[in-house]
């Protein structure tokens, strides 16, 4: 797996122009976040260049800046040994939606659910 130790890397303190590619749109990014851009490496059939985000010592994101097709990609490299997870503060949102997933409610719980509002029903049985 590509990592920051795999050759020369340029540490950039976040936020940086490169950091926007990670879409970690947390405005209060912790100072412990590093975005490391590796050198372009010829893997035999083209150039590969990756950007790695490190937060509190753990890799939280890997982005391919160059892949052998020659185009700039933002594909995540899912073969990374560590699964890529993002973490942010929980917010309580309102948004236009079509349906709601949540822990399974009972028939009674349904009456109180957003889904019942979406179904447009007053619930006589509750």
């Amino acid at each position, binding site marked *: 797996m590509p990592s920051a130790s795999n050759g020369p890397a340029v540490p950039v303190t976040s936020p940086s122009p490169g950091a926007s590619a990670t879409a970690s749109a947390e405005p209060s990014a912790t100072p412990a976040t590093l975005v490391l851009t590796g050198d372009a490496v010829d893997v035999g059939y083209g150039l590969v260049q990756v950007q790695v985000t490190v937060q509190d010592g753990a890799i939280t994101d890997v982005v391919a800046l160059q892949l052998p097709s020659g185009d700039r990609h933002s594909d995540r490299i899912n073969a990374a040994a560590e699964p890529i997870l993002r973490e942010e*503060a929980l917010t*309580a949102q309102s948004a236009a939606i079509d349906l709601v997933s949540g822990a399974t409610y009972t028939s009674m719980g349904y009456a109180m659910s957003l889904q019942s509002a979406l179904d447009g029903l007053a619930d006589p049985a509750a």
Partner: protein
Amino acid sequence: MPGTLAPIRSAYRRVIRVMGTVVSLDIRSEGDWIAAADEVEAWLREAEARFSMFRPDSEMWRVATHVVPLDDAHPDIREVLRLCEDVRDASGGRFDATRHRPDGLLDPTGLVKGWAIDRAEVILRDAGARSFALNAGGDLLVRGGRGTGQPWRVGIRHPRIADRLACVIALAEGAVATSGGYERGDHIADPAGDERWREVLSVTLSAAHLATADAYATAAFAMGRDGARWLAMQPGVEACVVTADDRLITTSGLPRLG
């Protein structure tokens, strides 16, 4: 409701009380869908009658209590129990139909509902519906976008505030299942007994089919914080986890709208 409700143009909608919860059917394809919805409703009631662990006359109850040998059981029962074993093995025993009940009876309830919804999807597709959603008490399946070439907008319920959302995802096709402790707190499945589930408020994942999505959500919930990592390693699965300290952990491929 705080501005959450968009104008919705459904061609047909039905709400079915079954399996201890409520199934919402929302068909966006134009057409007359009463007969197809009748067939879905009849199927869900048939599945409930066969699998209920609340009815001593159900076939599943008789299998669980060894009145009926498994080899003689209905093929649906054998199929569901095979799926349960698959998820048990994949989850290192965090989902285990043999260790869910205090009395030790075999209980596949955690997988049956999703499995029945997967079958209902086939009924709707065979009837010609291309664009529809089935939401079974918060575990759901969508097909064909929402009818305007747009993906379905699936809200993930905020675990503390019932009419707010933790995030929103866009999904044209697929299943979304959530497991959490806030609706049925007495139904926490914790085969390992280490109470790791206390680390998280809810676990949501998207996958191709609801039967396994539902069971994987149950298993990941029992893993606590490690559930997010485990789900991220499953092929074809994206997930979001709300932790007890109010963090939202998402896999990088989750198609988020908000």
